[in-house]
């Protein structure tokens, strides 16, 4: 099954650009939703549930982990694939993120087409 929609949660405008470009190149038909911090992402998720979420950890206002807590608490239906995308590969952060049942993968920036392929496979499972 192809990914229909992805929510990208990242405060960095350049990273948003890279994600958008990479996703477009991978599959132009994927609908891209953008949020610049956790609370914006929650607002979007109240309206709709995308197939996948790409989530940065370090963000102002509400960071990735705060977002995951709220997402776990407030939502019964979660996006099938939630992938962490961070610039540092720290074991501590990875362990913490993988404790959430809906977090399926953990990638290091920058986003690449391979990452999207893995996400598509995870969606098929």
């Amino acid at each position, binding site marked *: 099954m192809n990914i229909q929609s992805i929510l990208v949660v990242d405060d960095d405008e350049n990273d948003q650009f890279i994600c958008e470009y990479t996703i477009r*190149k991978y599959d132009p038909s994927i609908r891209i939703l953008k949020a*610049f911090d956790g609370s914006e992402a929650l607002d979007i998720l109240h309206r709709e549930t995308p197939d996948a979420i790409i989530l940065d950890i370090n963000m102002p206002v509400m960071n990735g982990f705060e977002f995951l807590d709220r997402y776990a608490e407030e939502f019964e239906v979660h996006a099938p694939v939630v992938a962490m995308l961070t610039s540092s590969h720290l074991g501590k952060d990875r362990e913490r993120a993988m404790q959430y049942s809906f977090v399926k993968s953990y990638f290091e920036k*920058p986003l*690449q087409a391979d990452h999207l392929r893995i996400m598509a496979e995870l969606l098929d499972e």
Partner: protein
Amino acid sequence: MVSAWSWQRANVAASLWCIAVGLAMMALWLAEPAGLAARHPWLFGMKFNAALAFVVIGTALGLAARGHKRLPALMTVPVFLYGALALSQHLFGIDAGIDTLLHRPFVDIGTSLPGRIAPNTALCLMLVSLALALRAHSGRSGMLQVALGFIAFIIAAAALIGYAIALDFAHDWIRFTRMSFQSASCFVAVSIALIFAGTETAGYQRVTLAGMLGLATYLLLLAMSYYELGRYEASFGITFSRDGANARSTLSSLVLISGALYGGLVAHLYVSSRRARRMAADLAESRARLTAIIDNAVDGVITIDDRGIILSANAACRRIFGFSPEEMTGRNVNMLMPEPYHSEHDRYISNYNHSGEAKIIGIGREVEGRRKDGTVFPLDLAVAKLELDGTVIYSGVVRDISERKASEQALIEANAELEEFAYRTSHDLRSPIASSLGLLTISKDMLADGELTALGQTLGRMEQNFRRLDHLIQNIITITRNRLMEEEERPIALRTLVSEAIDALSHLEDSKRIRIENHVPAELTIVSKPSKFQVIVGNMLSNAVKYHDPKEAEPAIDIRAFRYAGKLRLSVEDNGLGVPPASRHLLFKMFKRLHPNRSFGSGLGLYILRKSAEALGGTALYEARDKGSRFIIELPDGDRA
């Protein structure tokens, strides 16, 4: 000193007494009142020569006491010579013609030859004149003076007592020649002055001397009565003992033995009293030493009984707890503990008394103490159990470890901060690089596709990334330099420094449409570290510019500074975006960016501001305005230095 002064007065009294008695007697002899002599012959027991000698002695004694040396010493010479001559007349049965040289007596009373003085009087005159000569010459007391005075005293005192108890031999050493009671009284007075005045400086104890005087006089009187009894036996042919084998009576033997016993007893008492005094002094000294050790200990030392009542507390407790030792003694030791220990301590003690299971006794551990002002602080407590004479007391040694705890805490915080710093830098340093790597891949695609416009934009994004990275590294350098750099304090003209910081902002695009006003008074200076201060001011201003409100019609920044309650307050206020209430607790923390969609900050700006302010001994504060922010730093006012 009071005692020395009173002995000085005794000296004066003795000298006046001798002069008065001497003059009175000379006057009597010169007046020749035959009727008076017939009715009261005892009045004329003192001879004219003796009276003159006492006038001389009294005068010499008075002069010596006033510090004269040569004159009183010379005055004693004729007295000594007269005494020696008078004595040798008795010893060798000669007549030197001195008895009536100055005055021919109109009546002979109590003497063998007209005007002749008794041998004991002559001897005493020699003794006191010699002692007085020594005193006058040296100006102070001495062993020989005391010894001479001592002999003169017991002779004269025995004579005086002899008058009182009708023991004739005490004053009549040879028949019909007696030491008059006037002379005896004068000798007693002079010898007391010689023995006691100034003896403290010669190292003799007055009480000891007085005891010895009493004892010697007593023994002399005893010996005299013994001799007198023997004389009566011989002259009247009486034998008191039945068998006649013992010439001396049992009675007189008893008197002698009792005297010896009395003497022995007095000596024993004296020796044991001295020993007791020495022991008491040793005990007092060792006790004082122990008290001094405990009182000067840095640690608090508290003893309690088995009910928790404080028995003693040393001086250090005042510094540690704020209570004086007097305030603590007699109260329950739980007064020094915060809750719940305060209420539970009695139970702890009874548990221990029942079970014997020690939680703290003999172990020692960190506990909490409560000061007089109610503040609670960490302290190290070591308790020891002491069993003394069947009673149990506990001694506790307490040490205030607030400082140690505070530095431990500071170390833990610094370490946590360092860890956070390492974590965040590893993330934030890589972040723009990872982003640039992604952009580089995209650029290659765009180049291959010939999309040059899009490529240009992507390169712009990469530049942005590198600028961010550079900014972050600059900030890290600032932090490191702030931490490591030793900087001298010097006076800073605040207004100039602010103006320079404003000029330095001109490269920021936004600063051109913002009204920035420097309200700092020109005369305001502060003694501080200039480059840290520059970092602070630069940070506050660039923050105000970065977080201005683009929608605000008249964006403005106002810088003010004034002295307030011994501190210098520098404030930068803007009408910009402000800080959302929910995020305010994160202000001044490391790597906190509080504004969405404005990711150009490193998240270190306010952290650097706080650290720099703290390095200058001050604090950084935030106040929300109706619109915008007011950042304040308060620094100790070093201007007065």
